[in-house]
């Protein structure tokens, strides 16, 4: 395999690459050895710290899976509420009327500039002071509120970019047909924009899933991450094993979502050949493979 950045390795370069590989592996091995010996010293490598995750199904049914359900519940609620709200804000920002455009823009910029954790803590305090929501559900409400406010404004920007990326002729043609502005948006622009936005929206879901963990660490929301305390308390301080398993669960979920986003994007790019629209993916990174292919 070759790339634009370097020549196809000849005999000398091949030898050099072998040396680099050996040195690199040696460094990795040293780090691994240091980590493992530190773990062994604190008795974290003992089999009984790791086996519960394989042999004892109660770890999963009492802690991990209920925690995961809470995580997914918060993420699903957030995206379901944030989507329509974000669409409204995004369309609001495109409005012809100043009194709609400016407030929508202010709201979007404000909630995008503020850390989502601050929004969650503020929401939690508001619910505590001004509502009668029981303290069991307050963390969920606070997490979802914070995530909705933040992600609605992010989605608003995605929607705006999606609508603006459509060819001018679409809106003009709808106008020429005598459609109202709301009809143009609802029947012509938005349906096309949604397909363009889909990959960006799925990627945003990854951000949402990751941010639910904030609620576990700071607000006492019983999601996946917060289960580490119960597990380490009940299974003999197996901190490292627990964190490894929890991180892996997050990684699998988010990798699946990222994979889905990538597939949607590729499918869209294939379908694009027939029309004149080309839309750069929102914040997505262009794949390095194109470069490798070019070079070979």
């Amino acid at each position: 395999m070759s790339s634009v950045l370097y020549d196809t390795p000849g005999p000398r370069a091949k030898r050099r690459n072998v040396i680099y590989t050996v040195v690199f592996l040696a460094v990795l091995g040293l780090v691994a050895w240091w980590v493992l010996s530190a773990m062994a010293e604190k008795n974290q490598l003992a089999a009984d710290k790791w086996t519960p995750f394989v042999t004892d199904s109660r770890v999963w049914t009492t802690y991990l899976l209920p925690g995961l359900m809470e995580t997914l519940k918060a993420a699903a609620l957030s995206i379901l509420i944030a989507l329509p709200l974000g669409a409204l804000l995004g369309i609001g920002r495109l409005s012809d009327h100043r009194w709609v455009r400016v407030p929508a823009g202010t709201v979007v910029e404000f909630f995008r500039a503020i850390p989502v954790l601050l929004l969650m803590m503020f929401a939690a305090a508001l619910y505590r002071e001004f509502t009668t929501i029981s303290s069991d559900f307050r963390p969920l409400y606070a997490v979802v509120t914070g995530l909705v406010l933040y992600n609605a404004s992010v989605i608003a920007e995605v929607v705006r970019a999606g609508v603006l990326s459509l060819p001018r002729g679409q809106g003009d043609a709808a106008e020429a047909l005598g459609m109202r502005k709301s009809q143009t948006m609802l029947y012509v622009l938005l349906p096309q924009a949604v397909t363009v936005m889909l990959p960006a929206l799925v990627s945003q879901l990854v951000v949402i899933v990751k941010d639910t963990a904030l609620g576990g660490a700071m607000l006492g929301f019983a999601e996946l991450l917060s289960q580490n305390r119960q597990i380490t308390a009940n299974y003999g301080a197996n901190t490292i094993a627990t964190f490894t398993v929890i991180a892996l669960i997050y990684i699998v979920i988010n990798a699946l979502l990222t994979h889905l986003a990538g597939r949607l994007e590729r499918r869209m790019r294939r379908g694009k050949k027939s029309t004149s629209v080309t839309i750069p993916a929102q914040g997505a990174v262009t794949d390095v493979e194109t470069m490798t292919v070019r070079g070979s």
Partner: protein
Amino acid sequence: MFDFLDSGQYDLLGAFWVTAKLALYSAIGSLIWGTALVGMRVSPVPMMRAFGTAYVNLVRNTPLTVVLVACSFVLNQTLRITLGGGRSEEIGFRLAVLGLVLYTGTFVCEALRSGINTVPPGQAEAARALGLSFTQVLTLVVFPQAFRAVVTPLANVLIALTKNTTVASAISAAEAALLMKEMVENEADALFAVFAVFAFGFILLTLPTGLFLGWAAKRLAVKR
């Protein structure tokens, strides 16, 4: 309404100073680590490419909260690593910088990698034709152009990093979000004022960064 600011009970400026320091140190660290990662990801050595790809995909898909809490629970409380810090908030601060660098480095890496793709292949081909080695091609020809192309994405990473420093409150680094948590509990009658103050503080931190780097991006962009 804002009289809690005068009580002297809360060190608001001090907390935001810690936030700013966290953001600055982590930004420098993640820029270095991200550059090293992208170097590995495009290098001719397959082993390094594999490591770079695996690292980025694993860490990027882990929540930052998990990374930071693991830094505290695993590195500090289990393996007794203190990074030379004495007091608990000092240790928290250093571990937070470490966690933020490990996490943000992946985003810097991805931004830079997209920047490398904006450099026309002719540039690298010409450099190779001159007989430059891979390291020379990368450091003398490709990176200088790639960096100038990714000022805007890097600015977005920096702004996200500034907001992400709040997660450090989960491992008791004495920054703004931790102070806000304390204040929303003590000053329940001035909730909105407390929130307004902290929101304003973060807007003050992120807005000038965005404006300045947006201006810099326009000036630095390679005219093609």
